[in-house]
C-alpha cells in the first residue's frame, strides 16, 4: 500500500515530534531517547558518545526500526503504529539518508546513484523533474555540491575520493526535495577542510527546499552550523 500525499501534513507542521522513545536491541541493551521536536526547515545537531544509540535513533526516524515505547510522529505519520510498508513509503518519498561512508552502489555510476532515490519513489521523481529532465536535476545537484557533472557523471563510486563520494551521497539524499534529511556522521571520514565545506553545501541545498535536517556527529565543533543541538547520554 502506498501512502497518499494527503496524509502527510502541511509544510508548516512539525516534521518530527517524539517523546519517551525507547528501543531494546536483541541481547537486552535498552536505549532511552530525549524528546525531539523539529519544525520544517529546521536543522538539528545530535551528538553523544558512541554506544549512546545515535544510529538507533536515526533508524527509528527513518522508519526502519520500530520504537518499543513512546510516540514518534514523522510528517504526521505515527511511526510507532504505521505498518512497515507505510514506513518504507514515507522514507522513500520524504526522507533522504546519508551514511558515514560507503554510500554508493558500486555497480552504478555517479548519475545513476544520485537518481536511485527517484527510482523508488514516484513523488520524488515528479518533484525532481518539475523543471526539466531527471538528468538535468542530477547535474544541477552535483554542481550545487561542487562536483563537476561533466567529469564525474559516468564514474563509478570506487573512482571517487571519499569527499566526493559523500557529496554524491548528499546529492542522492536531496534529489526530489525530501522533507527530512538524516545524516549519520557523514563527515567523520573527511578531513577538517572538506568537512566544513561539505556541511555548508549540504545545508545550502536544504535551505533551498526547506528540508529539515537531523545531523549526527561526535565532533562538537560542527554544532555551530545548525539551529539546535540535542545531546544523547549513554
Amino acid at each position, binding site marked *: 500500500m502506498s501512502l497518499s500525499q494527503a496524509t502527510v501534513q502541511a509544510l508548516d507542521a512539525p516534521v518530527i515530534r517524539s517523546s519517551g522513545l525507547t528501543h531494546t536491541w536483541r541481547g537486552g541493551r535498552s536505549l532511552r531517547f530525549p524528546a525531539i521536536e523539529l519544525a520544517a526547515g529546521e536543522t538539528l545537531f545530535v551528538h553523544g558518545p558512541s554506544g549512546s544509540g545515535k*544510529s538507533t535513533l536515526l533508524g527509528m526516524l*527513518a522508519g526502519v526500526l520500530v520504537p518499543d515505547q513512546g510516540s514518534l510522529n514523522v510528517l504526521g505519520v505515527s511511526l510507532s503504529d504505521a505498518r512497515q510498508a507505510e514506513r518504507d513509503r514515507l522514507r522513500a518519498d520524504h526522507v533522504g539518508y546519508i551514511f558515514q561512508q560507503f554510500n554508493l552502489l558500486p555497480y552504478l555510476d555517479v548519475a545513476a546513484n544520485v537518481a536511485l532515490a527517484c527510482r523508488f519513489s514516484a513523488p*520524488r521523481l515528479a518533484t525532481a523533474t518539475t523543471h526539466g529532465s531527471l538528468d538535468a536535476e542530477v547535474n544541477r545537484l552535483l554542481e550545487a555540491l561542487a562536483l563537476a557533472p561533466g567529469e564525474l557523471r559516468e564514474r563509478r563510486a570506487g573512482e571517487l575520493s571519499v569527499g566526493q563520494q559523500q557529496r554524491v551521497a548528499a546529492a542522492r539524499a536531496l534529489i526530489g526535495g525530501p522533507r527530512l534529511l538524516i545524516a549519520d556522521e557523514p563527515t567523520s571520514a573527511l578531513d577538517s577542510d572538506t568537512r566544513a565545506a561539505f556541511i555548508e553545501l549540504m545545508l545550502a541545498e536544504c535551505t533551498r527546499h526547506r528540508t529539515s535536517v537531523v545531523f549526527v556527529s561526535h565532533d562538537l565543533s560542527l554544532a555551530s552550523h545548525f539551529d539546535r543541538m540535542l545531546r544523547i547520554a549513554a
Partner: protein
Amino acid sequence: MMRAGFWGPLPSLALRSLWHRRGSVLLTVATIALSVALLLGVERLAVESRRSFASTVSGTDLVVGARSGPVNLLLYAVFHVGDATNNVSWQSYLDVAHMPEVEWTIPISLGDSHRGFRVMGTTPDFYAHYRYGDHQPLGFASGGAVADVYDAVIGSNVAVKLDYAVGRKIVLTHGTGVGAQMQHADKPFRVVGVLQPTGTPIDDTVVVGLDGIEAIHIDWHAGIRLPGAEVDAEQARHADLTPKSITAFLVGLHSRMAVFGVQRAINDYDQEAMLAVLPGVALQQLWSIVGVAQQALRAISVMVVAVGLCGMLAALLTMLGERRREMAILRAVGARPATVFGLLVAEAGMLGLAGSVLGLALLYIAMALARPAFDRIAGIRLPLTAPTATEWLLLGAVLLASLLAGCLPAWIAYRRSLADGLQVRL
C-alpha cells in the same frame, strides 16, 4: 527513462549488480549452462533413439518369426541384434503371404556376414515395400536392386566404412560375429547397388537375394561344407534355389484394422509354432527394459543440474556478506525488505535464465558437431529441430528451481534488513 515504483528498478538493478560481479557470475552461468546442456542432451538422445528405432519399422504392421519372445524376435529380425533360435519354414511363410488381408511381405534370411556386417537375404519386395523414417521408401545412392543370384546391394555405412562401390567383388562369411571364419569363397558376389542412408540397421547390411543365400549353402550341411560334394557357382544357378526356411518376415496389411486378426491367425497357426508381433508393442516392451537405464541417466542429469544450482546458491550466499552495505543503501533510499528479497530472487532467476539459454545454445552446438558421428556409429539421427514441449518444460523447471534457490539468500537478506535497520553489522 527511469521508472519509479515497487518493481520498476529491480530488473535493471539486478542486471547491473550481476554485471558488476561478472567474474564469478560467468562461472556460475557456465556451470548451469553445462548442466542444462547435459539434461537436454540426455532427453533428446532418449527421444531420438526411440524415434530412430521406431523409424526402422515405420511401415511394418507385423514382424513374424519362429516362436520366441516378442523383444527377442524384433531384435534379431529387424535390428540384427542376436540370432534366431529357430527358422520359419518356407511353406508357413507362403501360407501367411497368401492370406487375403496381407498386402505384402518381406522375407528375411540372416546368418551370414561380410567383414562384420550382417548379410540379409530377401526378395525384390524389400525394395518395393520396406519403409523407414516417415514412411520413406528405400533409395539408391548408386546402382540398383539385386537382379542376379550373385548380386549384392550394400547399405550406406558398409559402402563408406569398407570403401566399396558398385562393381566390387565380395565374399560372404558363413555365420556372424568374430568366430565366423569359413568363407563362401567359391561363390563371390558383385556389388550392384549402394543404398542411401536410412538411419536404420539397413545401413550396416549387405542385402542379397534369397536365392543367393540358398546358392552359397547348396553344398553345406549342418554348418560345414560337405567335402567331395562341392557345387560350383555356375552349377548352383541351375539348382532349385527355393529356400526351405527363412529367419523371419515383415508383413504389411491392406488395412491396419485387420492387424489383430492376422496376428491371432499366425499365432494360432497349427502347422508350425510362429510368433507375430506388432513392432510398436514389442518396442514398448524393449523400452520398458532399456527405460531403466534411460531413467538412471535422466536422474543423473537432473542431479547435475541440482549441483549446478547449488553452485549458484553457494556463490549467491558468499556474495551476500559483501553485499550487506548494498542492501542497507537500497533500504535507505526507500527499498522495502520485499524489494531486497525480490532483487536477490531476480538475480538468481537471471542466472538461471542465462544458464538455460546458454545451455540450449551449447546443446545445439554439440548436436551440430556430433550428429555425423552419432549417425555413423549409433545410427541415431539428431535433427536440429526446435526444442520440444518437454525440453521447454525442463528449461522452465530449471528456471523455477533457480528462482526457488534464490529464495534462500533472499530470505537471509530480508531477515537481516529487518533486523539491522540501516546499520551494517559485520
